[in-house]
C-alpha cells in the first residue's frame, strides 16, 4: 500500500534535489490555495508513494505563509512519515526546525544531506547515536551524488509501518516545567491530540494562531498567563520567545556534543574565497553587472535570437505555408485563411517564439539561484533597491523586464516575501520591453531625425524614472507595512544539480506553453473576430469597418487630448494588447502602406505632429503590456484584484504622463 510522505527542510539544504531524485519527473506543481507558494506533489519511482514537497522554511512560526502552510499541512493531512532533510554542514541551525517537527507527533526520518562535504571537511558523525537520541531513523546521504539514496525508500517504508513517534526534546528545567504545566492544562480537553506537545511549545512562544485554534476558556487562559509569568520570572533577561528558542538551541548543542566530532583543522572553504572576490567592496557591482550582461546577451542576444529565428521559420514558412496550401487545395473560404494563418498561427506562433528566450532565461536564473549567487546579488543590490521600497532580489526581475515582461514577471517568484513580490510585479512592466522598440524606431525615425537615438534612449530612462517614482509612492502608501526585514541566509556556493535546473526550467516552460495554448489562443481568436467582423456580423477585410474599428472610433476622442485622436491610433493600441509588435504592423495596414516600416515612416508626418508622436511613444511605453504579460501577472499575483490594479495603474500613468508631455511639448515642437 502506498504511503504519504511530507518533505520538510530549510531552504538551501538540497530539499528540491532530493525531491527530484525521489520522484523523477512524476510531479505536479500548483499553488497552495490562496497564496503564491508553490505546492509540489510527486510520486516515488519505487513504490509509488506520495511525496509532498513542502516550502523551504527555518521554523514553524506563525509569521510566514510558508511556515503556516507546512504546519497546517502536517497537522491536517497527517502524512505517514515526515521526511526531514537537514544540511549536515550546518546541522546546528537545521536541527532547530527538526525539534519543532518532532513535536508534531508524526513519525520522522532524518535525512542528513551533504555527506560528501561532511567527509571532505573531516567531521565525524555518530549516526546511530543521533538516531537513538532523537527517536528517529537517521540516514546520511548525498542527494547530488546519489550516495545512500537507494536506502531511503525502504527506510521510509519501515518508519511508516512502525509508526514510531520521535522522542521529545529534553529542555532545561524551567522550560520542561512550563511545558509540563501547559500539558496538564490542555490534557483534559485535548488528550487525543497527537500534536499536543507542539501546541504546548507554541503556547510558550505566544503563538497567536495556536491560541486561537485551541479556543481556551477564560479560566484556562488565566492559568496559561500565570504559567508564562512564572516561566519568564526564572530568567534574567528572558522573554518567553527568546527563552524557548534558547532552550531549543541548548538541547541541540547537547545532541551535537554527543554525536558530532568536528575536525579542528578546518581549512577556509571555497565559498569564503569566492565571496572575497564576488562580494568585494570594489569588485562586487562590476561582477554583478557582468553576470547580468552575460545572462542578457545569452537570452536576448545571438543564441536566443537564433533559436527564435528557427521557430519563426517553423511557424511562418513551414506550418503557415503548409496550412495555406492545404486550405487552397481544400478550396476553403477566404476568412479561414485569415483566421488560421494570420490570427492563430501568427498570433499563437508570435507568442511561442518567446519560448527559447524563456527557456534560456530560466536556465540562467535557476543556475544563479541554486548556485547561491542570487542571495549575494540581493545582498549587493539591497540598499539601492530599498530606496524604491523593494529588496535586493527584485533587481533581476526588473532588469529582465527590458527583455520581455512575461518571463520577468515569472522571475519574481524568486522573491519569498509576498509584499516585495507584488510590488516588483507592479513595477516591472514599466521597464520598456523589447517588443516596444519597433514602435520607438518608426516614430523617432520619422520625426526626430538625428535626435532619434536620444529620443529612443530617453524612453527607456523615462520607464525607469516612472518605476522609481511609483515605487517610492507605493512604498509610502499601499506597501507601507514592511516588517519582514531582510534577514537572509547566504548559503555556501554549490554546483547546482543539472536535473534540478532542468526540471525547474521545464516547469516554467510548461506553464508558459499551457498559457499559450489556452488564454492566448482564445484571446487571439476573439481579437481576430473583432478585427474582421463588422457590428452587423459581416466579414470585412478592412479593419476600419470592423468591430475593433468601431471601438477605435469610439475610443479615439479619449486620446484626442493626448494628441492622437485618430481612430487608427486607437485601433493600433488595442491590437497592441495582443502583442506590442502588432502596433506598428496594424498602423501600416490601417494607413494602407502594408507592413514595411519605411513606408509607414513616410506617411506618419501627415497624421502626427512631433509632439503627438512623442506622446504616442510614451503611451506605448507605459500602457498595459500584452496579454501574455497580463496572464503572467494574473498567475503570479494569484489575484484578480491585483491584476486589475496593475492594469489600472499602467493605464492611469500612461494617460497622465502622455497628456502632460503632449500639452507641454506642443508649445515647443
Amino acid at each position, binding site marked *: 500500500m502506498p504511503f504519504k510522505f511530507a518533505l520538510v527542510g530549510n531552504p538551501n539544504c538540497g530539499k528540491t534535489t532530493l525531491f527530484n531524485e525521489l520522484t523523477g519527473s512524476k510531479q505536479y506543481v500548483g499553488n497552495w490555495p490562496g497564496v503564491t507558494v508553490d505546492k509540489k506533489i510527486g510520486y516515488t519511482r519505487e513504490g509509488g508513494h506520495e511525496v509532498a514537497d513542502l516550502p523551504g522554511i527555518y521554523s514553524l512560526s506563525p509569521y510566514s505563509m510558508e511556515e503556516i502552510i507546512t504546519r497546517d499541512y502536517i497537522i491536517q493531512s497527517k502524512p505517514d512519515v515526515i521526511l526531514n532533510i537537514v544540511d549536515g554542514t550546518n546541522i546546528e541551525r537545521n536541527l532547530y526546525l527538526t525539534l519543532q517537527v518532532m513535536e508534531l507527533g508524526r513519525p520522522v526520518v532524518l535525512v542528513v544531506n551533504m555527506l560528501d562535504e561532511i567527509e571532505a571537511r573531516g567531521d565525524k558523525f555518530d549516526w546511530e547515536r543521533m538516531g537513538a537520541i532523537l527517536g528517529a531513523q537517521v540516514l546520511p546521504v548525498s542527494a547530488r551524488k546519489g550516495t545512500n539514496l537507494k536506502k531511503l525508500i525502504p527506510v521510509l517504508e519501515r518508519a511508516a509501518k512502525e509508526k514510531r513517534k520521535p522522542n521529545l526534546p529534553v529542555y532545561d528545567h524551567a522550560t520542561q516545567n512550563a511545558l509540563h504545566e501547559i500539558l496538564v492544562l490542555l490534557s483534559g480537553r485535548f488528550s487525543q491530540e497527537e500534536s499536543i506537545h507542539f501546541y504546548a511549545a507554541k503556547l510558550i512562544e505566544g503563538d497567536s494562531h495556536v491560541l486561537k485554534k485551541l479556543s481556551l476558556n477564560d479560566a484556562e487562559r488565566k492559568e496559561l498567563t500565570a504559567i508564562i509569568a512564572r516561566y519568564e520570572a526564572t530568567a534574567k533577561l528572558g522573554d518567553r520567545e527568546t527563552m524557548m528558542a534558547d532552550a531549543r538551541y541548548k538541547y541541540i548543542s547537547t545532541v551535537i556534543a554527543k554525536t558530532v566530532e568536528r575536525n579542528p583543522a578546518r581549512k577556509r572553504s571555497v565559498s569564503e574565497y569566492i565571496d572575497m572576490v564576488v562580494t568585494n567592496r570594489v569588485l562586487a557591482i562590476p561582477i554583478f553587472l557582468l553576470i547580468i550582461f552575460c545572462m542578457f546577451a545569452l537570452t536576448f542576444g545571438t543564441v536566443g535570437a537564433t533559436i527564435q529565428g528557427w521557430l519563426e521559420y517553423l511557424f511562418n514558412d513551414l506550418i503557415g505555408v503548409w496550412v495555406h496550401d492545404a486550405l487552397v487545395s481544400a478550396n476553403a473560404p477566404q476568412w479561414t485563411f485569415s483566421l488560421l494563418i494570420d490570427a492563430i498561427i501568427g498570433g499563437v506562433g508570435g507568442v511561442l517564439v518567446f519560448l527559447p528566450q524563456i527557456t534560456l532565461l530560466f536556465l540562467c536564473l535557476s543556475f544563479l539561484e541554486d548556485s547561491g549567487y542570487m542571495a549575494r546579488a540581493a545582498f549587493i543590490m539591497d540598499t539601492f533597491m530599498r530606496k524604491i521600497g523593494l529588496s535586493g532580489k527584485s533587481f533581476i526581475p526588473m532588469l529582465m523586464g527590458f527583455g520581455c515582461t512575461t518571463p520577468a514577471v515569472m522571475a519574481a517568484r524568486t522573491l519569498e516575501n509576498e509584499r516585495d513580490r507584488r510590488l516588483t510585479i507592479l513595477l516591472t512592466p514599466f521597464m520598456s520591453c523589447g517588443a516596444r522598440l519597433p514602435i520607438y524606431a518608426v516614430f523617432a525615425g520619422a520625426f526626430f531625425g538625428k535626435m532619434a537615438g536620444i529620443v529612443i534612449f530617453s524612453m527607456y530612462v523615462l520607464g525607469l524614472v516612472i518605476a522609481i517614482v511609483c515605487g517610492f509612492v507605493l512604498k509610502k502608501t499601499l506597501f507601507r507595512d514592511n516588517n519582514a526585514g531582510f534577514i537572509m*541566509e547566504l548559503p555556501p556556493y554549490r554546483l547546482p544539480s543539472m536535473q534540478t535546473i532542468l526540471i525547474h526550467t521545464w516547469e516554467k516552460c510548461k506553464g508558459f506553453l499551457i498559457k499559450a495554448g489556452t488564454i492566448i489562443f482564445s484571446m487571439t481568436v476573439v481579437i481576430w473576430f473583432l478585427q474582421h467582423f463588422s457590428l452587423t456580423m459581416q466579414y470585412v477585410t478592412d479593419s476600419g469597418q470592423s468591430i475593433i474599428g468601431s471601438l477605435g472610433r469610439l475610443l479615439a476622442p479619449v486620446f484626442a487630448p493626448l494628441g492622437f485622436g485618430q481612430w487608427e491610433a486607437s485601433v493600433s493600441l488595442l491590437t497592441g494588447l495582443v502583442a506590442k509588435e502588432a502596433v506598428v504592423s496594424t498602423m501600416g495596414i490601417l494607413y494602407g502602406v502594408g507592413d514595411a516600416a519605411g513606408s509607414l515612416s513616410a506617411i506618419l508626418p501627415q497624421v502626427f505632429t512631433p509632439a503627438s508622436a512623442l506622446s504616442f511613444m510614451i503611451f506605448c511605453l507605459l500602457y498595459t503590456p500584452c496579454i501574455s504579460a497580463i496572464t503572467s501577472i494574473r498567475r503570479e499575483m494569484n489575484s484578480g484584484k491585483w491584476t486589475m490594479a496593475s492594469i489600472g495603474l499602467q493605464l492611469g500613468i500612461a494617460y497622465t504622463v502622455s497628456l502632460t508631455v503632449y500639452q507641454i511639448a506642443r508649445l515647443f515642437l
Partner: protein
Amino acid sequence: MTKRLKDLGKNKTGIVTAINCSGASKRRLIDMGITPGVEVKVVRVAPLGDPIQISLRGYELSLRRSDAKDILVEI
C-alpha cells in the same frame, strides 16, 4: 562593553546579550539562531554600506543595519 551589532565593525566578534525588537522581525532573528549567548562575527559589509554579513552557528547570515541595531552584543 555592550554595543549594538550594527556598530560592531568588520571582523569583530561579540556575544549576543539581548534582542530589543518585537513581532515578526524578532521571531525571524531568533529562529535564525540569534539568541542570547551566541557568538556572532561581522564578516563583511555590502558594497553600498548595508546590509552586513555575519557568521554564527557555522553559517552566514545577512541582515540590514536596521535589523542589527536592535541586537546588543558584548565584546
